[in-house]
């Protein structure tokens, strides 16, 4: 550990941040997810089932909302690798959650092109409306706000990703409306950006 007495250390850096995953309830894939898992595994050579660990974890996360120790065990068993192998992967990638998150996870891009176009104002507005800090979930358990690095839609900055759906050219005004829509209409308010041309033509 590098150390300098005069430096103020962040609470989360230069300390072991390892936390054990929640045990969670007993976990097995639903029949539908199991069928999708069995199909995904065929994409890889038979002796390389481990390659399917990311898709397998996505299935678990979609089924349960976040990744628990029991989900890790299940995935490890199906792929024929150890729990440590799976935990290694889970702890590395940012898109896996090991703690419960809100029904809508709002990822606000904070990297250069979005930042110079007002991403921070968007985060501030979201956090003020929901009475939370970035990284937290609001009291109702509906919204989690996370600041993330470049999402790759810099021409339509600032961009936010709500669960898997993108919303572009956001401003403090539009995100307020988006929160209202999500509360009122749930997932159907997630328009995303797919096929914008088609939608514009309608």
């Amino acid at each position, binding site marked *: 550990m590098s150390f300098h007495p005069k430096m103020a250390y962040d609470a989360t850096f230069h300390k072991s941040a390892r936390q054990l995953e929640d045990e969670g309830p007993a976990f097995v894939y639903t029949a539908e997810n199991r069928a999708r898992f069995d199909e995904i595994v065929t*994409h890889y050579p038979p002796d390389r089932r481990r390659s399917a660990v990311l898709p397998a974890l996505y299935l678990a996360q979609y089924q349960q909302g976040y990744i628990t120790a029991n989900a890790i065990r299940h995935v490890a068993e199906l792929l024929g690798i150890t729990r440590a192998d799976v935990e290694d992967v889970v702890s590395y990638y940012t898109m896996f959650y090991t703690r419960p998150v809100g029904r809508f996870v709002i990822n606000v891009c*904070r990297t250069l092109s979005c930042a110079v176009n007002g*991403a*921070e104002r968007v985060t501030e507005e979201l956090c003020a409306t929901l009475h939370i800090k970035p990284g937290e979930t609001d009291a109702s358990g509906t919204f989690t706000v996370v600041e*993330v690095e*470049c999402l*790759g839609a810099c*021409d339509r900055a600032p961009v936010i*990703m709500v669960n898997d*759906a993108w919303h572009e050219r956001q401003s403090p005004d539009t995100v307020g409306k988006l929160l209202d829509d999500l509360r009122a209409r749930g997932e159907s308010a997630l328009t995303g950006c797919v096929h914008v041309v088609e939608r514009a033509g309608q």
Partner: protein
Amino acid sequence: MERVLIPHVREPNSFTLDAYLAHGGYEALKAALGRKPDEIIAMVEASGLRGRGGAGFPTGMKWKFVDKKIEPRYIVCNADESEPGTFKDHLLMERNPHLLVEGCAIGCYAISAKVAYIYIRGEFFHVQGNLERAIADAYARGFLGRNILGSGFDCDVYVHRGAGAYEAGEETALLESLEGKRAQPRNKPPFPALFGLYGKPSAVNNVETLCNVPPIVSKGVDWYKALGPEKNGGPKLYCVSGQVRKPGVFEASMNITLRELVESDEFAGGAREGRKLKAVIPGGSSVPLLLPDQLDVRASFDDIQKAGSLLGSAAIIALDDTTCMVWLAENLLHFYRHESCGKCTPCREGTDWLHKILRRIERGDGQMKDLDLLASISANIGGKTLCAFGDAAVTPVLTTLKHFRHEYEAHIREGRCTLPADWRARQPVGAH
């Protein structure tokens, strides 16, 4: 220049197989299957196609290096587009996915691989659906699968979703991730052409690179080379973002100058009303920035390199006079600190220290000796890591120190940002 890669993307349903076929899609695959694999590699090599992911390595050479004696071989398409400022592959996959599928199939044929994996970043989930449907349609019409178009050639294409890691864009880290491990780079050599996915010979190519292959096969090497300057032929997608009037993806020949891309009304339209351009990052956050008087260079791999920067992934980020350069370095180092994979100590620890010191200066608590410290930490990271991430991470620090040292010194002297107060009020990002 006529548009080659994205000619019809603004038309409705441009992503469908019918639209692609109506514009001559999959003709290149038919033509390719009528030739020998080595002829395809020779064509790509003669065309001078250079990798569009960032390094600009000749694609034909990469394919030639793939060891033909070992089975199986793989094409791995790098669709983990994560370099800040880059969004060209996103457009290709969203609006013209069949071009990539065709490129993958031709690539597989050329190096006699039977499987191509497209490693797409996890955040591109909405694009992934499009791509998967394109692949399913291609299977249904016999452009993929067994005995393609009666040639006896088999090819499968699979999409593999990443899960949020910038480092997975590095080719060996991508292979590790595809094997179900952490996305951390391998020591090189051996290069993927000899020891790639599952230890088998593999070619790792960027999305735009593979999308360049069908036009080369169908329209010929001479046509392709004539599109751009020597050794920088072919069409290029430029992503222009930041503080310009019309950000977007623009397709152009590499004869175009950076100034045209940033300032001409045909492209990004220049700085916004009443603002002046201050600096331009020509190739993504990992390359040195250029000043407004350096923009009259051709936006080609070689010319930008001569001007002291790199074309990289052609992610042009324009910054106007409201942008504080210390803040810019701090913003980008926040990115690199977060995305460092943690394998090599200089990068893992160094990016954290650089960010801490930059934040301190930016908030007005810095000291003059911090500037030497930044330079010395940077020198301890650059060139001392397994992959190019370390060099990339120190670039924003070194380049802003070189061109805008006075802003750092003003921050330290004044204990605050010295941009005019009314600009700061408008400055979209706080912390000032």
